[in-house]
């Protein structure tokens, strides 16, 4: 067992292996006022050892995307996809039973609210060992030893004592570490983290991010990080997927997205965060005026046009496809990339000038 994992670690860096492929993912939710088309043709993939961040405002479909991958959509929701594969295995045809064999084992998830994601009436040890008992043939003692080791690994001191404690006896930061440990119990190939630090204090946020990065390197797993916070994206992401109104509006390597954003929405988001050395001290941060359009029913043309500073008449009725820029960077806008980039640079330049 130790040998196997050692070779796995040795092999991984040689060739980035795709662990998750998503192509044309759609999620529809029935509501009282009609069908809510929450996710519209989303495509991306994640390789082992890679961090992909999905960014967007609340309600853009990023959480629904993660739940759709996990097969944990709310009752009544309908998921369709051209391809949804995990380690090359098609997920769309799996039964609930087969899907649950993957969940918590090779595919695991970290949730947002550490205060409520743990069951208040069972001990930490009990909840930590559950995935092991479900997915591995393992004795009680061995399972608890492993739980203790992982708790120590996520930076919890006095791990043995913690195993016997209940969630309410732990602080928010500690609980989130427990939730992370729980996701790692079976050494997953992909972890989906849905805003894992949003509910925490800033200092603890930083610790948890640092921990996640470290653990990812150590376990060599892929990570899909869902957030609305571009600051976190800048520190974590290898690649970025920007979502708006259920669609991917821009995606590409993190460096490209931050330095040469094309889509006006991405540019707007970037103006909302302070960047050391670029954002003027004491100056105003940007904001994107307007509201996200309703996702009930179809959307004609570009979904961002009502808030877009560069909107053209054609944006209202043309269906805009994702355009490939250089094989890895793509965007969904009628502007050509050069024009988009110029607009960004001019703007950034003017910021620097006023500074």
């Amino acid at each position: 067992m130790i040998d196997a994992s050692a070779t796995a670690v040795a092999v991984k860096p040689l060739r980035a292996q795709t662990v998750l492929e998503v192509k044309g993912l759609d999620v529809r939710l029935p509501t009282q006022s009609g069908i809510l088309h929450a996710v519209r043709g989303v495509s991306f993939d994640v390789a082992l050892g890679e961090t992909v961040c999905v960014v967007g405002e609340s309600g853009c479909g990023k959480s629904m995307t993660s739940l759709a991958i996990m097969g944990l959509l709310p009752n009544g929701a309908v998921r369709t996809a051209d391809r949804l594969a995990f380690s090359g295995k098609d997920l769309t045809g799996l039964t609930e039973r087969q899907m649950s064999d993957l969940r918590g084992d090779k595919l695991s998830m970290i949730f947002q609210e550490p205060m409520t994601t743990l069951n208040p009436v069972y001990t930490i040890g009990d909840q930590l060992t559950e995935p092991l008992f479900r997915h591995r043939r393992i004795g009680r003692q061995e399972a608890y030893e492993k739980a203790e080791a992982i708790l120590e690994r996520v930076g919890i001191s006095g791990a043995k004592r913690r195993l016997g404690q209940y969630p309410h006896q732990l602080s928010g930061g500690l609980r989130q570490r427990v939730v992370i440990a729980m996701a790692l119990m079976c050494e997953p190939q992909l972890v989906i983290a849905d805003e894992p630090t949003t509910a925490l204090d800033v200092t603890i946020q930083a610790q948890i991010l640092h921990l996640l990065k470290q653990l990812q390197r150590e376990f060599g797993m892929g990570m899909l990080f869902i957030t609305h916070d571009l600051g976190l994206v800048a520190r974590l992401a290898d690649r970025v997927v920007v979502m708006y109104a259920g669609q991917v509006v821009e995606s590409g390597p993190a460096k490209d997205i931050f330095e040469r954003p094309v889509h006006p929405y991405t540019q707007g988001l970037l103006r909302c965060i302070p960047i050391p050395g670029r954002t003027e001290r004491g100056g105003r941060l940007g904001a994107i005026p307007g509201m996200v359009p309703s996702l009930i029913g179809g959307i004609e043309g570009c979904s961002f046009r009502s808030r877009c500073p560069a909107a053209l008449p054609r944006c209202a009725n043309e269906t805009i496809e994702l355009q490939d820029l250089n094989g890895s960077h793509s965007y969904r806008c009628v502007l050509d990339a050069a024009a988009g980039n110029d607009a960004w640079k001019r703007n950034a330049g003017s910021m620097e000038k006023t500074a």
Partner: protein
Amino acid sequence: MLVFALKRFVVGILVMLAVSTITFTLTNVAADPARTIAGEGASAADVEAIREAYGFDRPIIVRYGEWLGGALRADLGDSYRQRRPVVDVVMERLPVTMSLGGLAFAIAILAAIPLGIIAGLRPNSWIDRASLTFALIGQAMPTFWFALLGIVVFSVTLKWLPVSGSSSLSHFVLPAVVLAYYATPTLMRLTRAGMIEVMQSDYIRTAKAKGLRTGKIVLKHALRNAILPLVSVAAVQFGFMLGGSVVVETIFAMRGVGYLAWESITYSDLPVVQAIVLTIAAIYVVLTLAADIMNAWLDPRLRSN
């Protein structure tokens, strides 16, 4: 935890004291015990003689003190009608009532919890609607009417069960079902509501994300949280059942405490009535105490403070 239990115990003692004061006042002030013992046609002189002989002419406080002193030594006086210690009279009837109550409680729990779980897991399904309708009918069905219908159907028409008495297990079936039927809807609705709420909680999503099987998610993670509010209500319901046994035991002529209470009330055998009220109150106090302890056992958050 120990402090918590001790506190509840002291409150329980105080409640018993208050109940005893109320019942003693009721039976000694609202009614004239001397007249009751003497009977309808007794002369004024006879009543006076009895009043002096039993000491009813002394101030009520003194008499209460004396009675309370006796109560602490498990002596609640003598039955007017049977001329022997009340405690004996009540104790020999208690097993029938406790078996009836226990059986009815078991039936109620075994019907309410599974139904509540199934209904709560699939709100608005046909089984949910059926259970809610059943609950609605149960809450509107008077116990004594249901008992009479039961007798007509099962004892008179089908002749499956005996009409009255308490000498064999088959005598307990119909009364226990009748008693259980009234308590089941409350418990079922509570389980259902708890289940619906808990199944939407984040920790259930976590359990699903771990790949746990549905059975384990429901029975381990959801049920324990869903039944937390049920425990104290169930204790209260068990107390109600003992109270309701007056009606059921009278209809089925079962020789339990409830029937004894009815007999004693109609014969104005007040010491017995008083003792029965106290006994049921004591059982209620013990039950709520047990419910508190059980809640603390089920929910670690209660244990720590």
